[in-house]
C-alpha cells in the first residue's frame, strides 16, 4: 500500500501489510521530526505535497523495489500537513526472505522516495521559517 495521509502514522498496520509466511525479515523505517536541524531549534514542520502525483510516484518506487527484489513486499505511508517534534513523517516497511535484502530494499526505497516523490517540508523555528530544498528531480 502506498498512501499519503494527514492523520498520525502508526507503524503497526504498515508492518502487517508486508508480513507473510515467506518473510523471514521485516525492516521498518520511521522518519521522525527532530527538534534540531543544523543547530537551529525546530518548533514544527509543515509538509506540502502534490498529492495525486506523490501517491503515483510512491507506487513507482514500490515497482522499482519489486523489480530488484522480486521476493520482497513493501508498504509506504507519508504524512503531510503540520507535524510536531517526535511525530512520524514517513513509514517504509519491507519484508524479504532474508534480512540483507530487506535492509537494502528499505534503504533503496527511502533514497528513491527522497528523489522522485513530490513532497516538501517547511521548517518553522522560534524566529523564522523556510521551505527546505532537497534533491532536484532529474526531469
Amino acid at each position: 500500500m502506498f498512501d499519503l495521509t494527514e492523520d498520525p502514522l502508526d507503524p503497526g498496520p504498515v508492518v502487517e501489510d508486508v508480513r507473510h509466511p515467506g518473510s523471514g525479515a521485516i525492516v521498518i523505517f520511521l522518519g521522525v521530526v527532530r527538534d534540531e536541524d543544523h543547530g537551529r531549534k525546530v518548533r514544527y514542520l509543515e509538509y506540502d505535497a502534490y498529492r495525486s502525483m506523490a501517491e503515483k510516484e510512491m507506487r513507482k518506487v514500490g515497482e522499482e523495489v519489486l523489480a530488484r527484489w522480486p521476493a520482497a513486499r513493501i508498504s509506504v505511508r507519508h504524512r503531510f500537513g503540520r507535524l510536531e517534534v517526535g511525530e512520524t513523517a514517513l513509514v517504509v516497511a519491507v519484508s524479504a526472505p532474508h534480512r540483507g535484502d530487506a535492509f537494502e530494499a528499505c534503504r533503496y526505497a527511502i533514497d528513491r522516495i527522497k528523489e522522485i516523490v513530490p513532497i516538501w517540508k517547511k521548517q518553522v523555528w522560534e524566529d523564522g521559517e523556510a521551505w527546505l530544498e532537497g534533491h532536484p528531480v532529474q526531469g
Partner: protein
Amino acid sequence: MKVKVRLFAGLKDLVGGPEITVDLEEGATVRGLEDQLGREYPRLKPLLASLAFAVDEEYKARDYTLRDDDEVALVPPISGGCDV
C-alpha cells in the same frame, strides 16, 4: 493555448497562490513555458533552472511539447521524509 500551472511549497508563496494559467503559442514546449514564466513572474526566474516539470503527473524533459489544457506542475527540489 492555455496550460494550468500548479505551484507547491515556497513557489506558492512566491507567486501568491497554488495555481496560475499561462497563455502559450500552439506547439510550445516545457522550455517555452519556463521562459514565459520567467517573463511573467520575475521572482520565479532565479529558481526555474532547479525545477522539474511534471505534465499530467509525469516528469517531462524541457523539449516535451505541451498541449492545450495540460496541467503542469513546477516541482522544486524535493524534501520529503525527514532527516535530510
